[in-house]
């Protein structure tokens, strides 16, 4: 009897094999302060190390937008659904950048933090979560740029183009969440696999770039449909999100509840597998990396 009682008193049992679904979210919650610390660290260290500081946040999207407008708009002549081409590209780039940042940065979590993971325990999931939150800062700054551009084009409209904000704006938090979770989920799967199969890292940067062309960043979905590739673009869960994003801010885009629903379901499935695989890997990756 006494033995039984003692058995129940243990706070923690460290075992080799635990079930796949042993996710321990309460632990994650207990370490929430750490998440805040990591985000703060990322922000401060980024801000302190560069001369131009957060200005970099602007430079990248501006130049990408200009190049895209020139190459795809002027040279290739791909339609922008009657939107000012700069705005069209900027909305796509801003949202895509957030997704791809979340994906690429989380995809190297194990490798980048091998040292700290090898020395101390904390729920490993804190680290990718902090990355996703840190990236929100950058996303916010770029969003600000986008809004400034919208204001500019509202005051000085380009002939033949028009845009307007819609009620879809209320979906904005959900869209951001979806982008974050989709990037996170894919990143978790990749980082878990790269602990064993290193070569996957090369695929990531390359793959993300390719994937962008399969998303409606540089062309509207309607244009893809016209050319007969609409279905392929729609398979991509990011398409629904970006279309909804564009619809919310600019009033154009093939936004339907079904496409967003599809994106949500895919995101949740990927996230689910990502968390499970990550959780499985975190226990022993220190031995193999």
């Amino acid at each position: 009897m006494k033995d039984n009682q003692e058995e129940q008193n243990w706070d923690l049992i460290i075992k080799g094999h635990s079930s796949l679904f042993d996710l321990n979210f309460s632990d994650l919650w207990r370490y929430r302060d750490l998440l805040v610390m990591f985000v703060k660290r990322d922000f401060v260290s980024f801000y302190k190390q560069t001369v131009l500081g957060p200005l970099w946040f602007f430079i990248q999207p501006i130049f990408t937008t200009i190049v895209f407008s020139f190459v795809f708009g002027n040279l290739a002549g791909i339609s922008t659904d009657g939107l000012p081409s700069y705005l069209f590209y900027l909305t796509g780039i801003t949202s895509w950048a957030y997704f791809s940042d979340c994906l690429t940065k989380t995809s190297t979590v194990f490798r980048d933090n091998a040292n700290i993971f090898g020395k101390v325990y904390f729920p490993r999931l804190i680290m990718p979560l902090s990355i996703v939150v840190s990236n929100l800062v950058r996303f916010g700054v770029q969003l600000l740029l986008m809004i400034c551009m919208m204001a500019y084009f509202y005051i000085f409209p380009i002939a033949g183009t028009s845009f307007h904000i819609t009620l879809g704006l209320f979906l904005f938090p959900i869209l951001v969440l979806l982008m974050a979770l989709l990037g996170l989920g894919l990143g978790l799967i990749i980082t878990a696999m790269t602990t064993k199969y290193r070569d996957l890292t090369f695929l990531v940067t390359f793959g993300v770039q390719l994937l962008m062309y399969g998303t409606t960043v540089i062309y509207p979905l309607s244009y893809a449909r016209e050319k007969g590739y609409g279905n392929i673009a729609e398979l991509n869960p990011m398409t629904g999100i970006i279309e909804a994003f564009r619809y919310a801010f600019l009033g154009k885009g093939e936004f339907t509840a079904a496409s967003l629903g599809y994106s949500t379901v895919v995101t949740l499935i990927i996230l689910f597998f990502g968390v499970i695989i990550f959780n499985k890997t975190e226990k022993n990756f220190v031995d193999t990396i």
Partner: protein
Amino acid sequence: MSKPIIKVENLSKAYQIGQIGSRTLSKDVERFWQTKILGKEDPFLKIGETNNRSIKGTSNIVWSLKDINFEINQGDAVGIIGKNGAGKSTLLKLLSRVTSPTTGQIKVKGRIASLLEVGTGFHPELSGRENIYLNGAILGMRKKEITRKLDEIIDFSGVERYIDTPVKRYSSGMYVRLAFAVAAHLESEILIVDEVLAVGDAEFQKKCLGKMGDISKSEGRTVLFVSHNMAAVQNLCNKGIVLQNGMNHFQGAADKAIQEYLKNSADITSLADYKGRSGTGIVKIINAKIYGENQFVEPQVGQPLHIELELYNPSKIDSSQIRLDLKIDDNLGQRFLWLSNYLFEKQTVNNVTKMIFKIDKLILNQGGYYISTDLYVDYKRADWLQSAIYFEVIDGDFYKTGRNIPVEESKIYLDFDVDFYNK
């Protein structure tokens, strides 16, 4: 009071050695099929092999720990001792959940804070204060907990003046002090400390040891301490666990454990494959054996000491051409002794293969010491080894009075006398 707070049951940890990176998907699939679907044992693990690094195993799996069992009671200060590769670090890693066991389990009551490295996660750009929060959070403290203890931490670290300076401008000593201060103020029931005390100056080391002593003795918290420094283990711990080749060799009172460990660790240092040497190599030191009165006795304060050096001498050089200097430093790098055959005229011996330095009465106080050797053949440096040989001196009765010089006061003993007079 003496309730078990940690219970380790049949704990084992296997490591795969060799090319881990070349693991193929097909092998993984096979393993998965065998273990998960058919429920058989893992085909790539061979049971019963022990972890002995000097013998090449037949499989590429090494058991770093094998069937470890022990219990630790609340308030104990336990020293985990063993030679390099005995599994100490693996045990700590398992206890601190950095990696998980292959088989067996560990049951724990309360929180574990582990200090496998000082200053994990310190960010050079952040100030000392910010790093206290960051490091504290990494070690599992809540923000308000850190805020409550902030003054105490800063005070202990002694870097008050620079607390708002980025830590990249800190000296390494300040860095370590700050980091240890954070860890020492964790409110965990169990504190695990690896040999982090090897850094920092002597005064701070003493402070750390003192703090750890407080933690276990007055606060009643449990401390697990891994060290090569037997003196520190003796001072700090009341229990000891000796690991040998990944197995539990001995557990019990700290002094018994230290004795057991020393009995097993005949201080033979094999230097044949030592890499960090320089010189012509005409004559080389290939083995060093250090012992007390005879080969079965540990070096002890006030007792004889023998330093036996085996030489590789293919050119059959005789003793008149050889000069060997031994320099003995303590583990903080302070030089204490300089011995050399150059000081004496000795009868020539042909084809020398061994030299023995004999000290009648060892004047070094207890602790660890390193020997650097400098061997000359015909005034040319033939073999130079920096701090390659390590030995430990255990406490002894130098004055035959049962009274000793505290090691903090002096590292050396001296034969002397004192008398009283009244004119």
